[in-house]
Structures are given as C-alpha cells and as structure tokens.
C-alpha cells in the first residue's frame, strides 16, 4: 500500500500488513500517537488493508509549550 507520513512529509510503499494495527507495528508507531485515514475516512486498528490502498498517517502529538 501507499503510505503518506508527516513530520517530515514523505511517501512510501509498504507491502505485507493486512490491518492498520499491523501497519503501525511495522512502522514502529504507537496507535495512541497517530490517526490513520483512508481518503476522508478515519479508520481504526482492526480495519483490513488492501495492497492498493492509499493511507495517510497523521501524527496527533504536538510539542512546544
């Protein structure tokens, strides 16, 4: 699947993960620290993913004070 990442903004191809949870594990990301979008839809960890999906991983953590 095609994955869009932020901070810094970049795109990458990832093969294999069958669910959102597996994808996050592969990228070493904590589910609590991100949101996953497919198009306009916010999807949860249990959602199944297909090889031709385009997903965006949006960080939710802001720093600073």
């Amino acid at each position, binding site marked *: 699947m095609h994955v869009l990442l*932020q*901070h810094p903004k970049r795109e990458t191809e990832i093969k294999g993960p069958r669910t959102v949870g597996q994808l996050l594990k592969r990228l070493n990301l*904590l*589910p*609590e*620290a*991100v*949101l996953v*979008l497919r198009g306009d*839809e*916010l*999807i*949860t960890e*249990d*959602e*199944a993913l297909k090889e031709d999906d385009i997903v965006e991983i*949006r*960080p*939710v*953590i*802001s*720093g*600073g*004070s």
Partner: protein
Amino acid sequence: MPRHNTSVCAACLNDYVVEQVKRAIKDHTMFGRGDRILVAVSGGKDSLSLWDILMRLGYDTAGLHIQQGIGDYSEQSHQKTAAFAESRGAELILHSLKEKEGAGVLELADLTDRSPCSACGVMKRYNFNKIACDRGFDVLATGHNLDDEASRLLGNVLRWQEDYLAKQFPALQATHEKFVKKVKPLYRLAEREITAYAVVNKIDYVIEECPMSVGSKMFVNKEVLNRLETDAPGTKQAFYFGFLERQKQEDLSREDETIRSCTRCGQPTTAAVCSYCRILEKVKTAP
C-alpha cells in the same frame, strides 16, 4: 474513540467531544452565557477545534492570534487561522510581535539569551492576558488537552515542582485586578480525540510543528504516557483526573505568592520588573 465496526463515527465523535467540553465548563464553572470569551488560537488542531466547539455551543467568542515571526511556520499559522475565522464570520484579533514588540521570537531570543520557547512563552502569556483585560473579556480560553496537562504534570512531579502544581488547574481565577481568568475547556479530551474532531469536521489546521519544538521535552513525556496508555488504556485520565481530585481535597487555593504590579508596565508579576519588560528593554537598547 466512538466507532462503528472499524471506522470512527463522526456523529458519535462530535457528540462525545462536545459532551466532554460541556462537562469541563460545568465542573469547573469556567464561564457562562453572558461572558465574553477570548480564545487563544495558534492555527493548530487544538485551538481551532476549541474555538469551533465554543461557537457550536453558542458562546460569545473572539479569537486572538499572535504572529510570532518564525518564518513559514508562522505565515501558515496566520493564514489558516484567518481563513478559519473568515469562514465562520468570527472576530479575530491579530497581534504581530514584529510590529508591536519590534522583534519576532527568534530575534527576541537572540537579544536576551533565552531559548526561543522561553521568549515565546513570555510574549504569549503577557499578550494573552493583557489583550483580554484591555478589551474587556471575562475569560481567556486555551486549547490545552489531556495529553498536554498529563505530560506537564508528569514533568512537574518528576522534579517535584510543587509551586507549579497549583497552577495546573483547568480554571484559574484572576488573583490580581489585571489578571484575566484562564480556562482549558479541552482538558478532558485526549490529543488523539481532538485531532479526530478536527479531521472529521474538516477544520483546516497547520499540521507542521513549530520548528523550535524539535527535541522538546514535551514530546518525550507524551510518548512515555502514550506507551503506558497503550498497555493500560485510561492511564492518562487516571493520572491527571486523580491529581485534580486530590487538589480539590487539599484545597491548594492558598494565597498566591505575593503577586504585585510591575513597576514599568503595571501588569501583574512576582518580580519588581516583569519578564516582558526585561525582554523589551533589550530590544530598545539593541545596537
């Protein structure tokens, strides 16, 4: 987060978020229908969502955006904030540090040997409070969420900074005639829930982080808490809400450490001359 099967349900999420904000306002008697609320808006997900929710609930609000002068990041923040205000016909007050103070955050940091975040913090706190008071607002609302408060609490507890603990309440009464009341209506909501709210409501916020936040301790503390949360959901809430319960019982509303008026500007401070005036002194005497 409310969901049906494997997608997040926008309608249920909105109900949930709005309910949590209503509860925060009520539990801490933050403000009422007759009050004028100044919302500090950075252009990020938290503050724009907060403003959106308060307008949705019918409160009388205006936004205040401080232009920090940190390159592209500040430009984008200003644009997104202005576009949001315009799309809702809301009143937005702009305050440019370069115009009003004569220097942006980076120059101020250079001139004073402070870190950019420290200079930025002084400028924000001072201007939020002063503009709210001068323009007759009853309360200043900021977009701090549960993750902000829990990670700050963690930092303060790790160093036992007890003085700071008393100031970590979601509603702070004005303890000086020139202090405005300060509230954090999002304190019950996780950062992830707020971001989801912004996304499902198509709020166009700045996704980029301020370049000065790289390596901030806040990120580390938030990550630690998120690890604990992943293992035991509810940890963040239990930590911060538990603190609030204990604070209530002990009634730490003891007298504030000798707040007096700054001898230069008259604004409340604990020193003879406030940090803001000390920074501006350096701008005036800069070669």
